[in-house]
């Protein structure tokens, strides 16, 4: 489940309170160290100490993750910088199998002594738990890769960009919003660098340098007389890129009723449009509930894909491992085994892909040393596969893992996390304008808003940022108070058209939450604008007091 928005996004909280809220997304960055990278030779020596120690204490398998995690936040409101913060966290997590059971321990004492002690703890945890019983862990075979490395293909390391440049961008954007009539504006730049060294008893020593960036803003427009307010959030996406994402490029813009963005984001342009749209939202017509044909922009549809396709195809949910928190899945194994379970219309082709350049989920190897890949989840509307890790692969007849293992930091245990899950563009040429021309009574949604789905992923409700009424093939004006409710299979079976690859874009979540203790993971979802017929729309307007 995607976590509740940052506090600043709901327009509450002062600067001092924001940082603690944000830092739950990752441990608290030393830009200087971030540029240096970790000492691979030293890491290998330390990792070998841990692996040998775990084995000598009775582990049949062990892996070690030495991680240095850097974040940088710049947080502003209106004409003020509320906080500039660098956070840094360094430590090691050791995972073992002993007596057929998993054990995990972590420490920030990254020395030979710390390795020995922590490996011992992990084995002790495994042995204590083995007494409870249950089926022993069955780990898919994985060949060792020897010493290898991978780095996010970035053009400009965000940690090398001067603070002043970043502050000027945000305050410049805020000024445009205020000139445009906004009452309040919050903006944020959030940069992540994960430096991870993985080693396992399989003989892999993997050094990775992962970069992500998320620029965003939220504008508030107030109508005090009516006691009403509206917000408009940025149409940016969090991406697996460097600072180049913030250098606008006309060829990466999708023009239309409002501009949307592919691999480059124009914050100043978007915030100007947003300040006008927030005011338009206050004056917009409240939606008449009923059935509508929905034209969903990728900046919106990514979240529907995330919740209704990404999560139910997670094998750990299907098997019951998430039953106590996020829930299980309606896509049970019998449906997959049948080979003909209809998930959606034949237009619906959905792939899992941990290799897509610029995506949040892209890495070279997952957090249990498996090389990343791409595979089909839904083919021509039929369920064909899930997302699995090493101790699950055998359950769906796979000889090797699909490489979906991730831990949010060195101190958290790795487990099955969603790869990028994306709707493939339509094969027939189709533009958004041509799609809208054939809609008689519809709503065009841009941007993601409120979201909620049940624990088996049947019933969902989604809002958005911008809603436009479509009447007889034309956009008739802005609507407000829109949310749609649907059942996952009915919704994907109502998918009538998907625009072609010209319109394909990535959206994503920086903060997908899962597991106990809950861990945050970043994942992208690609789509082209799509048409869904006869979807149930509700009106969300209420009165209090």
């Amino acid at each position, binding site marked *: *489940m995607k976590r*509740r928005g940052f506090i600043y996004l*709901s*327009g509450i*909280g002062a*600067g001092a*309170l924001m940082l603690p809220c944000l830092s739950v997304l990752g*441990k*608290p960055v*030393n830009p200087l160290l971030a540029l240096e990278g970790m000492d691979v030779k030293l890491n290998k020596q330390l990792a070998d100490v841990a692996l040998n120690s775990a084995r000598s204490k009775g582990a049949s398998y062990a892996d070690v993750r030495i991680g240095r995690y850097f974040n940088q936040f710049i947080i502003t409101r209106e004409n003020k910088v*509320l*906080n*500039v*913060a*660098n*956070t*840094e*966290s360094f430590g090691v997590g050791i995972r073992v199998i002993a007596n057929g*059971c998993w054990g*995990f*321990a*972590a420490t*920030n004492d990254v020395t030979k*002594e710390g390795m020995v002690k922590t490996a011992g703890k*992990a084995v002790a*945890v495994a042995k204590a738990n083995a007494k*409870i019983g*249950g*089926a022993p862990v069955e780990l898919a075979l994985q060949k060792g890769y020897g010493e290898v490395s991978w780095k996010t293909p970035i053009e400009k390391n965000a940690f090398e960009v*001067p*603070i002043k440049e970043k*502050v000027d961008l945000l305050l410049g954007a805020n000024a445009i919003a205020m000139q445009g009539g906004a009452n309040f504006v919050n903006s944020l730049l959030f940069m992540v660098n994960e430096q991870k060294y993985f080693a396992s008893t399989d003989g892999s020593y993997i050094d990775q340098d992962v970069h992500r960036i998320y620029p965003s803003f939220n504008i*508030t427009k107030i109508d005090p007389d009516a*006691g009403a*307010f509206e917000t408009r959030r940025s149409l940016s996406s969090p991406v697996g890129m460097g600072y180049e994402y913030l250098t606008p490029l006309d060829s990466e813009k999708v023009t239309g009723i409002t501009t949307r963005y592919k691999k480059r984001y124009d914050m100043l342009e978007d915030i100007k449009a947003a300040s006008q749209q927030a005011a338009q939202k206050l004056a917009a017509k409240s939606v008449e509930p009923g059935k509508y044909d929905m034209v969903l922009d990728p900046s919106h549809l990514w979240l529907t894909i995330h919740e209704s396709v990404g999560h139910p195809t997670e094998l750990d949910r299907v098997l019951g491992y*998430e*039953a*106590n928190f996020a829930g*299980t899945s*309606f896509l*049970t194994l019998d449906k997959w085994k049948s080979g003909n379970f209809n998930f959606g219309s034949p237009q619906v082709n959905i792939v899992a892909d941990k290799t897509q350049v610029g995506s949040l989920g892209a890495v070279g190897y997952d957090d249990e040393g498996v090389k990343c890949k791409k595979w089909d989840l839904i083919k021509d509307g039929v369920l064909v596969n899930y997302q699995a890790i090493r101790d699950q692969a055998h359950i769906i007849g796979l000889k090797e893992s699909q490489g979906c293992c991730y831990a949010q930091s060195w*101190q*958290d*245990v790795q487990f099955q996390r969603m790869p990028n899950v994306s709707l493939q563009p339509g094969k027939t040429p189709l533009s958004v304008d041509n799609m809208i021309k054939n809609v008689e009574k519809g709503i065009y949604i841009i941007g993601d808003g*409120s*979201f*909620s789905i*049940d*624990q088996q992923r049947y*019933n969902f*409700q989604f809002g958005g940022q911008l809603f436009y009424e479509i009447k007889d093939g034309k956009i008739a004006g802005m609507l407000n108070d829109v949310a749609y409710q649907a059942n996952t299979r009915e919704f994907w079976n109502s998918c009538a058209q998907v625009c072609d690859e010209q319109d394909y874009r990535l959206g994503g979540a920086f903060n997908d939450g899962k597991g*106990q*203790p*809950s861990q945050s993971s970043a994942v992208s979802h690609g789509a082209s604008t799509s048409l869904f017929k006869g979807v*149930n729309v509700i009106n*969300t*307007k209420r*009165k*209090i*007091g």
Partner: protein
Amino acid sequence: MIMSLLNTEEAQALLKKVLGFSKADECEVSLNGREGGNIRYALNAVSTAGDINTMDLAVTSVYGKKAGTATINEFDDASLESVVGRSEELAQLAPSNPEYMPMLGPQTFAESITFNADTAAMTPDSRATMVAKSLEVTRQANLTAAGFIENATNFSAVMNSKGLFAYDKGTGVTFSVTTRNEEGSASGYAARGFTNVKKLDTYSATKIAAGKAVSSLGAKAIEPGKYTVILEPVAATYMLENMFRFDARSAEEGRSFLSKKGGGTRLGEQLLDPKVTIYSDPFNPELPASTWSGEGLPHEKTVWIDKGVVKNLSYSRYWAQKKGVNPMPGPSNIIMEGGDATIEDMIKSTERGILVSRLWYIRMVDPQTLLLTGLTRDGLFYIEGGKIKFPVKNFRFNESPVIMLNNVDALGKPERSISVESYRSYLIPPMKLRDFTFSSLSDAV
């Protein structure tokens, strides 16, 4: 060896050392440490388990009104000196923040009652034993359990260059379990959270979850619409958690459910049913909390809603100064007063209604009215003529806690209950409410 839990003197000594490296006009250093562990189980066996110790240091340096923050989790002298230096570099690069408030001088804070030695002494083995007790129930009942137990001892300490020092240490243990039948057609849940582990009985909690699962078999679909509902504390807690922000600034800025039409706030107005009183008290023995806030102010007993009237709003130091009032930290914890009714009494007095065991995936739809959407989960029962008649299929709801707390029929005895998403603890009573809006059916079990 690196320690994760420092006592007052050790924390004081380390923070003093860090401050010694400071060259800024003002400097604040804070330490947060945690020792704890967890077991996660599913399909009646352990899936993951861990034992984790961490400690982080945050340094905020200020020149004039320019502030920068840097954090680290390494504690050798060179690391400490460099983290201070980094925060100073960031502060020099940051523009002046007109909202910056000078740091406070020495303050007096009462000692908290948040620490319990038995909880602090939990081990991988004691956790495993508690999980084994839970599994005993589900193995006997032929159900599958998925659950989670986690305990931690946390400490936090803060010191600034003006002489303020504060320290707090606390413990907590949470347990939750979901019990399902093999066919996946029935599911039950229980969740517990305590400061003192001796209050945690994983066997009886799992019994309750198992009972819910068994009695939810054969759920029928009924029409969505407005119903009288009885919310068990775990359901009420998750719903109300979204309302517990009594922030003056957003209200005065006109962007909160506490904003008033025409400007100003709802302070002093009857916002909720007179049966509703909500307050914070760090010394409540059932729900102890830290005695100082992030801004370095003491937490004292504070009434937020008094018999339905908005009694207090929280003011940050900056906003208080701007508005000429005293600063008031936000809630340290949340306690909602209750009544005498038991859940059985509430059922007996219900002609037609629904008993709700748990709610799920609640998200804000409209912050202006606090309209929330979410679903029921793990036990939903139809009541007719004062009796539970049959289990019903789950619903999606669209409802505002403000509307909900204007429709209160009866309240029960408050109990400590955890939010099923944030895992924070609250003291919340079971409640019977009129006209709760269910908007569609869900097939999920």
